[in-house]
């Protein structure tokens, strides 16, 4: 029983990170029909900036806040420099290459800066573990899935209740019509990228105390977050968050009952099967284009 509880809880913790990353992909895709493939690196920016600021003596809370803002700023600038110039022409896929390129550059800079070492981010959330049904977990890890769900709910409120949220939905539905209604489409798209990156950086700050901040910490979560966004249906926020949590738990059970090296094989095979059965993802709606 304690083993099963351990796998479920550890899985929810890592799944929460996947969910936050996938939620970022959902936000970007909804607004721009493009995503930032360097999104995994916003985790790294969040984690590393926080670790550096704490190391030079800043209080943890402020360091994390600044780190998250830095992440958001990165998303904003990246949208302006590497996505918008390539979205003008129809069917342009230049943004794929440019966002990947920016990601590689940022990662290289981080490697030079850290010399490849991982940096610790001390947090009160990992000083001692708590026991739940025989499973041991850091409070920090317990907080992650909760925060992922809160982010999902927050996004819903934002979309329903605020002007910018409604504008995001309008842009997602039809860019040209939204522009004709007086919505500044460019601003909304830039806001979406910044918001997604804020979430990414927050995920980085959350996970860094547990896994350490390093130049490569965002690579795998970034890739898996994208896979989960596709699997869950990139147009559905609850879809990607729930899929993220479930994927994390599934991974732990594969590690526990099959083997650690089988984890990616099973995970990515599952992704292909899901896409064959549900081409729009598990929770995605078919997008009807009227011609």
């Amino acid at each position, binding site marked *: 029983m304690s*083993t099963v509880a*351990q*796998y479920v809880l*550890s899985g929810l*913790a*890592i799944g929460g990170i996947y969910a936050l990353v996938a939620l970022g992909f959902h936000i970007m895709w909804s607004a721009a029909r493009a995503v930032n493939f360097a999104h995994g690196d916003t985790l790294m920016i969040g984690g590393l900036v926080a670790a550096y600021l704490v190391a030079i003596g800043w209080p943890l809370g402020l360091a994390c806040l600044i780190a998250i803002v830095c992440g958001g700023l990165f998303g904003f600038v990246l949208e302006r420099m590497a996505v918008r110039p390539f979205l003008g022409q129809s069917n342009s896929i230049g943004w794929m290459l440019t966002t990947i390129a920016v990601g590689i550059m940022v990662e*290289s800079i981080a*490697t*030079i800066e*850290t*010399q*490849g*070492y*991982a*940096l*610790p981010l*001390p947090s009160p959330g*990992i000083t001692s*573990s708590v026991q739940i049904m025989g*499973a*041991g*977990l*850091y409070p920090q890890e317990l907080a992650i899935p909760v925060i992922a769900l809160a982010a999902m709910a927050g996004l819903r409120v934002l979309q329903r209740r605020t002007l910018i949220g409604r504008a995001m939905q309008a842009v997602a539905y039809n860019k040209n019509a939204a522009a004709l209604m007086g919505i500044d489409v460019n601003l909304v798209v830039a806001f979406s990228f910044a918001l997604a990156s804020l979430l990414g950086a927050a995920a980085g700050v959350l*996970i860094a105390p*547990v*896994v*350490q901040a*390093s*130049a*490569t*910490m965002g*690579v*795998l979560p970034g890739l898996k977050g994208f896979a989960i966004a596709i699997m869950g249906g990139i147009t559905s926020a609850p879809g990607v968050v729930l899929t993220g949590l479930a994927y994390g738990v599934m991974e*732990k059970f594969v*590690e*526990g009952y099959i*083997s*650690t*090296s089988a*984890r*990616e094989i099973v995970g990515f095979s599952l992704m292909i099967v899901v896409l064959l059965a549900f081409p729009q993802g598990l929770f995605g709606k078919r997008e009807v284009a009227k011609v």
Partner: protein
Amino acid sequence: MPFQRFKRLRLMAATVAFGLASSAAMAEQQPCIGNSAAVTGPAAFSGLAIKMGAEIAIDEINASGGVLGKQLKLVQYDDAGAPPRGVDNTRRIALADKCIAILGGFHSTVAVAQVDPVHEIGIPYMGVWAANTKAIENGKDPNFMFRISAKDKWVARFLVDEALKVTKDGKIAFFYENTGWGNGALPDVKAALAAKGKELVVAETFNWNDQDMSPQVMRARDAGADVIIIWSLDREANQVLRAMDKISYKPTIVGAWGISGNLGELAGPLANGTRVMQTYSFLTPQSETGKKVLATLESKYGLKDPSTIKAASGIANAYDAVYLLADAIKIAGSYDWPKVQQALYQVERDGLVAPYKPAFDKADPERNDALLPEHYLLAVWHDGKLIPFAGSPYDK
């Protein structure tokens, strides 16, 4: 058109023939040593350590007149831990830079990939870090792969001996990273245990950047292991320690030297008591050579406090490797590759890491390795610092 195509074909054939001929008649080696190591990627610190050690030795050698009347030079390439780049760098160092020898890097997968190109070309290779047994014991004759570093086969015996000293009921688990280095060590550890009439209770693996090791750690606990031998880097070892902390499981950890970088910083007090195999430490009483190197590390690289020097083994191994190569060049009286390869077997020197008497033994295929198990050193993590085990609070 057919004529033009024929002309182009002939031109191509001539180019290929010229290329072959010129590589066979490799002219004039230059007084340089090429290093292919990871200067970027997760083990970037290792490339920097090797560079420091090699540069210090080269500066000293040049200050006393260089080799065969010429100043020695270091040519640095980055392999980023990727075998294809290591192979490419090998060819570049040998054929473009025409260096006398190649210094190896951190990653075993790269070192193993370099075996073939090194022998195709016939340039001496001196490993200073990657410890894979087969990189050096590769069955080639003449063998151009030499090493001043640990050898996994011997490290496994060394760590198994330490594990058996600590264990109460002989239940030992093995944790290893899913890489060329980790997978290569599994048979070595099994063999070392079998020689003592024991076997592993579990062998658990994990990938780089894995973020939670709970399943593996729980299996080790359920198997009753009271000692864990670990073959990993700092980052993953930290995850193992944290997973143990979460389930309040406290076995003794005995690790290969991948966890000698910044584990103390990452895991904090959880790292205390983790034993690590090293080839060198700047925290023991230093020889004259050691004092000299420490002084240069301070003046040239600003490393004032010896306890803050990360990867001491890498620095020291690279330092000795350059000296052994310089000695061999002097004995050979030439920069010529085969002559230097032969001369390496005649080198004797009191090095920084160990006395090399002789450094290598042509008659023994196990002895293209200069460092022997008796030169290995046990260190232990204590309050964020890696200190010699002897005399530490854990030495009872």
